[in-house]
């Protein structure tokens, strides 16, 4: 059960991939994460998390290397797998269970 937990940043990256249409590479991911979190995001952290997610089978990747044709850039696109979607849903459900009934408690604390 322990191996199936998502880390917080892993969760954010997966959500960002979904928001970007289900497939993205590091540059738009970084910009999306910075916009959503309001803080700087290290591109290296995104690289590492994407590799880890791929190793876990939650995303798959493909290379688009237009440098060979001399017309553009090389990019590595990452796409959510069905396993990845299931894990994100499960994570959301877990968060919702934790937050269940919290509105009232948060409201009383204010």
């Amino acid at each position, binding site marked *: 059960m322990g191996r199936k937990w998502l880390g917080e940043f892993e969760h954010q990256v997966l959500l960002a991939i979904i928001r970007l249409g289900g497939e993205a590479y590091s*540059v738009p991911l970084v910009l999306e994460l910075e916009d959503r979190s309001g803080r700087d995001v*290290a591109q290296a*952290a995104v690289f590492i998390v994407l590799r880890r997610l791929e190793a876990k089978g939650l995303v798959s990747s493909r290379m688009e290397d237009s440098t060979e044709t001399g017309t553009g850039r090389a990019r590595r696109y990452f796409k959510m797998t069905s396993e990845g979607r299931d894990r994100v849903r499960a994570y959301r459900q877990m968060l919702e269970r934790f937050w269940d009934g919290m509105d009232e408690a948060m409201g009383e604390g204010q």
Partner: protein
Amino acid sequence: MSWRRVSPWVRRLLTHLLSEHELRAVISELDELNEVREGRVGATRAARAYSRSARQLALQLLGQRMRGIAGAGLSLRAVVQSLRALSRVPVFSGSIVASVGLGIGGCAAVFSVVNALFLQPLPYPDADRLHFIVTESAPNWYPLSVVDFQALKAQQTQFASVAAYMRRTRTYTADDGVAERLAAVFVTPDYFRTLGISPVLGRDFVGEDGLPGAPATVIVSDGFAELRLGGRHNALGQLIRLDGNSFEVVGIMPPDLGPLGSSTPIFPALRMQTPGRKGPFSYWAIGRLKEGVSPAGANEELAAINRNLFPLWEDSYQDDRATWGARPMADVVNGDPQDTLVVLLGAVLLVLLIATANAANLFTARVSQRRSELAVRSALGASRKQIVGHLLVETGILTVGGAAFGLLVAWGAIQLLPVVASGYLPRLSEVRLDPAVTGFALALSLLCGLLFGVLPAMTGVGKDGLGGQLRAAGRSSSLGGGKHRVHRFLVVAQLAVVVPLLTGAGLLVATLNKLQEVDPGFEAEGLLSMRASPSRSAYGSWEVRVALWDRVLAEVGAIPGVFSVGLADGRPPSRMPQSNNFDLEDDPTPPGESQPQAPWVAATPGYFEALGVPLFGGRMLRLADIDADAPSVILVDQEWEERFFPGGSAIGKRLKSGGCAQCDWTTIVGIVGNVPYAGTGTYQGGAVYSPTGYGVTDGYLYVRSAGNASAVMPLVREALRSIDPTLPLTEILTAEELLSNGLAGPRQLSRILTWFSATAFLLALMGLYGTTAYGVQRRRAEIAIRIALGGSPGAVSGRVVRQGMGLVLGGLLFGLVGALAVTRVMSSLLFEVTPRDPLTLLGVSGLLLGVALLATLVPAMRAANVDPTVVLREE
């Protein structure tokens, strides 16, 4: 900002860690994000972010790669956690680091000697081409003579250069008149050139320095120049007085001169004068082979030169079987310490083995103690690989600790080697903790780590994980039966290893005792000896020396309390003056055979009286025996008489000494008691005494007095000062000190081996105690039930003792077999003790059984004191 401006090491790392496609994509995406950021936050911040990202990515990927290599769990966090965990069990951690480190340090120290003597070349350029050129007369070999060397130098073609040297001592008189005796090596002009070293200041010797009648010159060591001549630059050109003669300092040598120059302060130029006879053979010749010349080829030429030389000097030398040969310099310098080194290396390896077995025992127990904790880790999702990896981190930390401590011990032991091992190992000043020795220590540490850590870690965590352990009852350190069998096996193995060590130490101690029982041949009580070395310039002639010694003996003999005084050029038990060959009239040496040899001591009649050496037949030497027209006479000892005239008398027999066919016959006039000069317990084949003690150039004075021998020393000094204030007295020793010094080698070796075996014994006993105690702990419930059902505590403790002693007996039996096999290598180190000496074996067995019994008694008594109600309530 671009990829090219990223640090080279980051670029290199990423190039190594990523595939070509991946790297292209990373670079491209870094560039793309940089362009976006330049627009948002400016070029500087964007560039910083670019570099940081590249660097972080490289380090993260490297960390992942290292974790992959080392298995799960290796991260900085894991190391820190393991360090904390080990620091909470300081006794456990300290025991492993200390015991394994001691073993590694000892092994590394002994290996450093092996390395210096046999694995490293001599510290001279192309040292494998350096050879000693010696006279080979099987079974003996000895130096060359002046005649030999001059012929060698003139005729040889196989050596790039040849040189000769002679070790002597000389009295150095400083400007303030203080005299001291110094070691000197007299060298021919090509000596340093042959070795491949040269002075750092001044000049080397040239051909003229070696010519008879040339001004006396000397090259000095760096240390001598600094300490006595006011520094290197002041020393050059100074005149120093050696034995009253002035020598000009022409060169200063560098500090490290290797085995043929270290510890020597002065190198006077050797000026050879052709003598009237072939001998004496006092000059060690060295040569540097030319490139491409083989030793076999050189030996052929050497033999030919010797063959051509022989007929020219046949009158004074008849051994036509003797030839010349070249021996590798390393072999001659190292001598023959192999047996000693094998014993030492074997001993330290055994100690290390025991220490490692102990560590394995401790580590296995720790894994067992932590089974609950490890089981929880497993339940929380840690794989077996991760758990084993976690344990391996601890092993790694302990291994590193053991290696570091071991290197410290090795360094300390190497500093102590010249003090504790100089009696039986050569060239200890060249022994160092160099990269080879360090590498050896680290490799040994790795092996120990594998043995004491990896095996217990792998076996302690079963293939099916540790989940079942959570269901196990009790929190005590209960071991499964299988794991306890491992402990018992380790204990038996440790004891089996201890037995050969204890046996070896016991044999050496027995040897030392036997050597101490050897009759020294003289009476030690009240006997004092000292070295007296008159200067050659003042006492160069025979007559002047005879007059000096005659006066010295008379003045010292007149001191109140002095019973007798004598003089000789040898000193028992291990300072042989020279060995001489001779031809017996009754049994002449057949042509083509080597003449017999024996120690030849020049002595005065008082020498025998002072030492208390009895006269068994014939007459004592007299002063008149050295008169010019007196017939040549000698004394021999009983061993010599038995060797050459078994069952008969040697009195009146005649011989010709030194191979001199034209010399007069020498007659044996008396037989005296045996006195050793070749070392206590070493066969020397008898000794010969000539009356020329009155004319020695460098002799030992022997004074026998009533009471404390040292008490007369001030009076002896005063007496000699009144005759010649510049006559130095050195090496002042009582007879007890002489005998003790003569046994320094065997004593040092026996002490070291005793220390090793005591350490190993202690470690093995710790293992025995621990295993017995664990066994009692494991079976507490069973013991409690037995007592509750009426069993006597005595029976319970007896059972524990029987089980413990069963292990001891097993270890002893295996150990005795090992001891019988292993101690054979020590044969050459023993004296009147066989490697299978039954007394020693019995003693070791008794010691092991007795002390081990005590080690098992404590846990046995604890078992007897088990309170059944407490234990059963816990269960």
